[in-house]
């Protein structure tokens, strides 16, 4: 049949680099770079074998966790971490809300928008550990530096997501409330809040999770809490206590994840 006149094959044309020579050259260059890069890592096989041995002891400690001999340290570290987590999350949320509203283009004048977006950018561009090192240097060892670190990091996270959420909120609902003669605050309360509140609650709970995990990490650089306890245990080669601490952290994160899932379903 004459249908055979149509071609029977079709190939997807290259989308990014059209010249075949360049494509081949780039592939070769990538492989060469990879080989050289791996070659430049100086591997000390003796260190590796010691490390593996330690790792094994660590795993053994993990399998036989010792909750008892360092119980007092663990309890105080844990309560410090939980306090730090909770207070920093609450304070972070309270500061994030006005900044998030200020950073929503559809609600605020240009200068306010730019200021709030810069605050968010600064907070997001600094990793928690770097902030923690800096704040520990400023305020000394202990949970206060940790509290400040986590509160600051919470602002970058929550304010950005809140602002993006507000910008995506239905503009007709905002217009409808504005058209009734409502003031700016009334518009926030009646048109914005109902649209973004459920997600804000979900994100806050999620941030609580993150802050607890981060509190363990920043403890290692001196910001107090369970991280400091963990660090001490590892320094003293008490891997059974360290294993216990890790198990507790995992359990708490799992419980809080489960609870926040329930709450999120409930507020929807």
């Amino acid at each position, binding site marked *: *049949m*004459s*249908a055979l*006149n*149509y071609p029977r094959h079709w190939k997807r044309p290259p989308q990014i680099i059209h010249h075949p020579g360049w494509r081949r050259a780039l592939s070769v260059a990538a492989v060469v770079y990879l080989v050289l890069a791996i070659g430049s890592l100086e591997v000390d096989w003796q260190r590796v074998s010691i490390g593996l041995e330690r790792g094994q002891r660590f795993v053994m400690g993990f399998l036989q966790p010792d909750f008892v001999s360092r119980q007092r340290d663990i309890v105080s570290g844990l309560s410090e971490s939980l306090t730090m987590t909770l207070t920093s999350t609450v304070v972070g949320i309270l500061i994030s809300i006005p900044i998030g509203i200020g950073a929503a283009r559809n609600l605020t004048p240009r200068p306010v928008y730019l200021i709030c977006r810069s605050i968010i950018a600064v907070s997001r561009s600094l990793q928690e550990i770097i902030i923690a090192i800096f704040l520990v240097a400023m305020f000394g060892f202990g949970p206060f530096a940790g509290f400040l670190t986590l509160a600051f990091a919470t602002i970058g996270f929550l304010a950005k997501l809140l602002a993006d959420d507000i910008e995506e909120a*239905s503009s*007709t*609902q905002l*217009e*409808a*409330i*504005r*058209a*009734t*003669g*409502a*003031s700016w*605050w*009334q518009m926030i*309360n*009646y*048109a914005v809040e*109902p*649209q973004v*509140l*459920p997600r804000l609650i979900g994100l806050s709970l999620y941030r609580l999770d993150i802050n607890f995990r981060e509190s363990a990490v920043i403890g290692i650089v001196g910001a107090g809490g369970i991280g400091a306890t963990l660090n001490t245990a590892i320094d003293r080669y008490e891997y059974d206590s360290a294993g216990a601490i890790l198990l507790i952290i995992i359990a708490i994160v799992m419980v809080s994840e489960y609870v926040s899932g329930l709450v999120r379903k409930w507020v929807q």
Partner: protein
Amino acid sequence: MLTIKGLSKTYRTGDSALKNVSLTVPGGQIIGLIGPSGAGKSTLIRCINRLVEPTSGQVLLGDIDLTRLGGAGLRVQRRRIGMIFQEYALVERLTVMENVLSGRLGYVPFWRSWTRRFPGEDIQRAWALLDRVGLMDHANKRADTLSGGQRQRVGIARALAQAPELLLIDEPTASLDPRTSRQIMRLLTELCAERQLPAIVNIHDVPLARQFVQRLIGLRAGEVVFDGPPEALDEAMLTHIYGEEEWQTNAPEEDDAPPAPAMPEARALAS
């Protein structure tokens, strides 16, 4: 009474959506605003309550020029103008009652609206309106649980809760089935008649408009090209507003046919 004088709107994109529009809406009159898509109907309505900033011209409600107001002054005048939207524009996570009461926001201070403690007479008015639109039993439901027709009735109740002196209605029936559309149009015309309330209704459905309004205004490319009673809108006028089209039958549109295939066997092969 609403008077529009020489109203023009050019969007930042360069679209000239309204060109020197002038018209007067006396008390108690419902005006149907018709015209093809992009003619500027929504722009005209939104320029009146300044959801869109007009480029030039005057909008007089009574003897107050709305185009000169800003801030608090504008808010006070917006209370006098109720607006009803095509997609209802209810705040979906609020209850029906909260949506109706939000029509009072321009009248109550922030702390009262925030704590949901509206004055007794506002609440009474809201109940009366809910009863009038047939939604007494739905007051405490969330708005997103209602059907389209019910939502639009909440939208109407919210607009009337403002005790407005003018209603702006942007395609109230475009998302509704034909029967519900009719019911909504009937409800709107009755409510306006009860209150001697003037209204401007954007409407795509010309037969529906003919049935329910006393005066039609035809807009084409931002200009008023027709202003008169529905009886005066004949076929020649429709063509003038909407462009060439067979109005009586549904003739197939030849412009929209796809181009002929390159090889004659295409049809057999494709089917």
